[in-house]
């Protein structure tokens, strides 16, 4: 009201416009300040891209032509990588179902929901690579360590996504099932799961795609798959081989993305 008296020559709506401009300006100011602050911390130096351009050109030239001499090895390791991703995802989906339901506010009391959520947060907070290093120590070098690493991290991610889907359901059908005298578990099986199934399938497929990508790097710490070759070829300055491995990764990841998109469309 007081602004109406200071700008009494302006209609009400335009007063609002003026004051909102100041708020927007402040918002942009803060955004700019954060960007500058982060620029210094990250030691951003785009000039280096130009100054060292020659070095980079030489380096990039080493990648071409790609050296596919050992391609059967690359392909078999890539298959192992996909196998790691398959089991890492399947185990995670199986565990994410109960954990997802147990972290849904609308189905369980807070004293179940909150501890389970915190547990899932901790599964999610640690990156796959860190879990991979830990499991290499625990279960030894090889793909199984990679499976365990993906499994733990993905369980945390999927449990959260699954519970968000559950919290968005229509409570009506659940009540319809409850009214027949069904047990709590049956309410979930008949009232909740049919409603969330398309989303759950979609999330699981998406996580499978990301897990194939993640599985290509867990090998760098010895947890199996194509990452070992990638790492060894880079350390040996065999960049032509690195390039060949990267091309194979790109081809496989892309074709799996396309396949899983096709599968997903059939469920929604």
């Amino acid at each position, binding site marked *: 009201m007081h602004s109406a008296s200071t700008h009494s020559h302006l209609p009400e709506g335009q007063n609002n416009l003026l004051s909102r401009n100041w708020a927007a300006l402040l918002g942009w100011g803060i955004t700019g300040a954060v960007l500058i602050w982060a620029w210094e911390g990250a030691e951003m130096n785009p000039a280096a891209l130009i100054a060292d351009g020659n070095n980079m050109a030489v380096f990039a030239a080493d990648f071409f032509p790609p050296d596919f001499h050992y391609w059967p090895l690359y392909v078999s390791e890539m298959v192992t990588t996909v196998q790691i991703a398959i089991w890492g995802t399947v185990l995670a989906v199986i565990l994410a179902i109960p954990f997802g339901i147990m972290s849904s506010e609308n189905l369980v009391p807070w004293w179940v929901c909150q501890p389970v959520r915190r547990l899932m947060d901790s599964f999610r907070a640690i990156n796959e690579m860190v879990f991979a290093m830990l499991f290499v120590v625990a279960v030894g070098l090889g793909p199984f360590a990679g499976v365990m690493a993906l499994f733990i991290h993905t369980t945390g991610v999927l449990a959260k996504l699954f519970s968000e889907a559950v919290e968005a359901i229509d409570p009506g*059908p659940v009540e319809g*099932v409850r009214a*027949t005298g069904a047990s709590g578990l049956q309410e979930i099986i008949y009232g909740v799961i049919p409603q969330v199934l398309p989303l759950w399938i979609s999330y699981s497929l998406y996580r499978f795609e990301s897990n194939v990508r993640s599985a290509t790097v867990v090998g760098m710490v010895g947890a199996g798959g194509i990452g070992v070759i990638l790492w060894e070829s880079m350390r040996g300055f065999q960049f032509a081989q690195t390039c060949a491995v990267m091309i194979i990764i790109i081809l496989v990841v892309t074709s799996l993305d396309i396949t899983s998109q096709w599968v997903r469309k059939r469920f929604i």
Partner: protein
Amino acid sequence: MGPDIQVKGLSKTFGNNKRADKALKNINLSIESGEMVALIGPSGSGKSTLLRHLAGLSCSDVDSGEIRVLGQLVQCQGRLSPDIRKTRARIGYIFQQFNLVGRMKVITNVLTGTLGRVPGWRGCLGLFNTEEKALALKCLNRVGMDLWATQRASLLSGGQQQRVAIARTLTQKAEVILADEPIASLDPESARRVMEILADINDQDGRTVVVTLHQVDYAREFCHRAVALKAGEIVYDGPSANLTPAVLASIYGTTSFDIDGEPVKNKKNPTPAKAFALAATG
């Protein structure tokens, strides 16, 4: 054995606000076996809330008395009976929004009616036997929906969904049927069909039926007894034939009735019960 439904001193307040208006104020009600009772009253008068308490889908205030259905305790002083699921299995509940599971087949929706009595593991795995499936089909046939058995429930019209919901309570072999605004979301033709099916279940099978209604003419046509609520209190309990325009005006607080004695509806109130849908998990 006493009356089918017995409510003693039921009160309900929504939210924590003690000063808030009570949705139900000290309701006492008794309904005998085989009766067909209409619960009428303006929007927000508490008729849906009352019905939800009868099936233990909502919990009353802690200073309330007890609710018994078929002699079994449903809730007492705001606490659901530990045996609530057994009692719910004997109570059929029909919702305004049908509450079918849209992505499941019609027949599976109807088969959920058996969940209260089949062994738990079989219900969980969905292993219904031939006898149960035959019963479900028979019940679908009775409401004229057997040809849709393998369709997804979400593909049906409102009237069809409501008939499937009735088939679910028939499969349940419910002894008492509570219908919460069963025809409020339906077109006139479907509404009449649904009311006729409910009346037939009352008449042929002798089931007790309690139905909340907006339309007073339906109450007069299908129910012998009417109970009227206004602002959470019972203001009329007697033969529906005695619902004269003067009585209706006192219930609805309006004089604008059309020729059938139907109140001219004002803006639709959202039912507060909806927000508590999952609060009473029992």
